């Protein structure tokens, strides 16, 4: 046995079934035994970035570790963006990279890049294996590290001569993982605060999804009657159809969700990290709220907003403990009356473009309705992402996979590819922007060849729409370099890659084209939705302003202008 075979056997031993990657000089030894593996499916992507995001999509669709593989140098550096992405969104990913042979490390050898150093700030941990006998142990540790505690990416760098050298095989022991134990006194304190609060809110983040705690969240929410908001990373962690759900908070959140946090007297943050896109100006954020902050990562507690009661633990443990400790809460009727008023007065909505063009929000809501909540949706970054968060109704945790923390354009297509590999029985729809699509659409060739029938809805507004929106609002409508023009023809491009290419530019055609796409099972489908360029994402809290200044349209600030909240 050599190091390469030990690697493949170790991957099989930890239950790895799918690897996304591209071979090259330094990783070549590993690809030889991979060729023979009956347990591991290798998906040959067209770019390593695609492999990395696919691993993330796979991980988020399955709850298991996603794996990507690349050669040294440029192969490895192409993984930098997906690793940073997985780091900020706490996704369990293991990246395996080839490295130049040990004797030439540090000599600027051909395709040498110090990928460990490059990725230090964007990986949870990394290894460079120097002894082939260590490979099984390192792989087992890497998988355990990626998945345990706060999940994240782990890099394993393997010099070529280590892969080629004779290796011993010792069955890797699954490393012991310690799960933090909740402090019962803090749980009691949190439960007491909850019982006394008049304006409590469950502020639900991606940690609830990662912990698989959505069922417990629902039980606790229903037991207490507390309003729930779900962040971009947590869409689906609480059903959108649930009457206690106020929607998404933050920069493009609903008025009710933003106001609930802003006027709250008790925020119970569950696996959320008080990101600036949620809090707006921190100094003005939720001025009257006490904070219970539950997170598995102690370093998140009081990072941005001081926690009055920290709960360090896995969200499942936290929710179970809270459920066991809460008695009935206080009278929430006045609170609900206020929030219901906001919901009714300021529902999510949109106007049809005056020039008769298609409203992108309409396209996305119809996709959501026709395709339904059992599907998995991914998105790129930009306006279409926010509309996908707002206008698709999510009912299942993990059914919206997007790039929240890093905001990586080009995430949608490869993430959808990874998701469908992990969940072949579910429909997977990528809601993408025309800008994002042009960054990673080559993975459609991979999907066509591998029989991965993803659907891609390109929301084609001819622009880097989100940037254009900021230029419209904050740069006097000077549209500096945000027009993408009208090429390429996305439907033809799709056909060229072995997919079905469709186009729709009228309201009347939307349902038919979505149904047509749904009927295709053997190939990927791309629908080019030609939409108006001027649609904007509302509501909006402009960067750096307080959440009180949320605008439902340009210049309309319901929480400042009206006195709805005064009597609370």
């Amino acid at each position, binding site marked *: 046995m050599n190091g390469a075979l030990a690697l493949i056997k170790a991957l099989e031993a930890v239950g790895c079934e799918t690897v996304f990657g591209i071979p090259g000089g330094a990783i070549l030894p590993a690809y030889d035994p991979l060729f023979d593996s009956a347990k591991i499916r290798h998906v040959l992507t067209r770019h390593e970035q695609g492999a990395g995001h696919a691993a993330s999509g796979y991980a988020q669709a399955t709850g298991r570790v996603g794996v990507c593989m690349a050669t040294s140098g440029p192969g490895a550096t192409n993984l930098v963006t997906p690793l940073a992405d997985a780091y900020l969104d706490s996704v369990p990913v293991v990246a395996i990279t080839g490295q130049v042979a040990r004797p030439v490390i540090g000599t600027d050898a051909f395709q040498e890049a110090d990928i460990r*150093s490059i990725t230090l700030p964007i990986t949870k*941990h990394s290894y460079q294996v120097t002894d082939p006998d260590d490979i099984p142990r390192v792989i087992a540790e890497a998988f355990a*590290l990626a998945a345990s505690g706060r999940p994240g990416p782990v890099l394993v760098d393997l010099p070529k001569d280590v892969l080629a050298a004779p290796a011993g095989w010792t069955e890797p022991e699954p490393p012991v993982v310690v799960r933090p134990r909740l402090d019962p006194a803090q749980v009691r304190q949190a439960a007491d605060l909850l019982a006394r609060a008049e304006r409590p809110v469950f502020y639900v983040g991606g940690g609830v999804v990662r912990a698989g705690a959505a069922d417990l969240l629902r039980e606790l929410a229903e037991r207490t009657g507390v309003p729930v908001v779900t962040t971009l990373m947590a869409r689906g962690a609480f059903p959108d159809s649930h009457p206690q759900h106020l929607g998404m908070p933050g920069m493009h959140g609903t008025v009710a969700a933003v106001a609930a946090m802003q006027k709250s007297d008790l925020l119970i943050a569950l696996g959320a990290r008080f990101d600036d896109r949620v809090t707006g100006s921190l100094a003005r954020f939720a001025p009257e709220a006490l904070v219970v902050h539950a997170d598995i990562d102690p*370093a998140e507690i*009081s990072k941005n907003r001081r926690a009055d009661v920290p709960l360090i633990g896995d969200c499942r443990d936290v929710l179970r403990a809270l459920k066991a400790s809460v008695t009935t809460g206080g009278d929430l009727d006045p609170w609900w009356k206020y929030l219901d008023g906001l919901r009714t007065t300021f529902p999510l909505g949109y106007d049809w473009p005056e020039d008769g063009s298609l409203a992108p929000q309409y396209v996305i809501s119809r996709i959501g309705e026709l395709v339904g909540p059992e599907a998995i949706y991914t998105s790129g970054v930009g306006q279409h992402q926010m509309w996908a968060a707002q206008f698709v109704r999510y009912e299942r945790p993990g059914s919206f996979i997007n790039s929240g923390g890093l905001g990586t354009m080009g995430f949608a297509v490869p993430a959808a590819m990874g998701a469908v590999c992990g969940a072949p029985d579910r429909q997977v729809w990528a809601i993408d922007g025309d800008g994002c699509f042009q960054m990673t659409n080559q993975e459609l060739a991979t999907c066509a060849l591998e029989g991965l029938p993803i659907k891609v809805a390109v929301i084609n507004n001819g622009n880097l729409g989100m940037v254009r929106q900021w230029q419209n609002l904050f740069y006097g409508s000077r549209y500096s370099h945000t027009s993408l023009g009208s090429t390429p023809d996305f439907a033809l491009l799709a056909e060229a890659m072995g997919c079905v290419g469709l186009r729709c530019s009228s309201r009347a055609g939307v349902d038919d084209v979505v149904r047509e796409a749904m009927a295709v099972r053997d190939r990927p489908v791309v629908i080019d939705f030609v939409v108006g360029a001027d649609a904007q994402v509302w509501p909006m809290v402009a960067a750096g302003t307080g959440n009180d200044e949320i605008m439902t349209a340009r210049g309309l600030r319901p929480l400042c202008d009206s006195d709805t909240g005064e009597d609370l």
Partner: protein
Amino acid sequence: MHRLSVLLRNKPGALARVVVLFSTRDVAVESLSLSPAGADGLSRLDVQVRLREGRSVDQLVHQLRRVVDLCEVSAA
């Protein structure tokens, strides 16, 4: 100014990870010294750091504890 006393495993990249963490989190390093600590492949790192206004040393300590090859850290 804060004094941090860190016990690290002598694994490749362990020191780099700590130093990069300082840089990532905008922590200014005033002095740094590394020396062997006992026989068990451990090193003692003594660092004096200056934090950005409003940032707490406790938070830095928690961030350091995320470093897999770090055994102990205390702040004074």
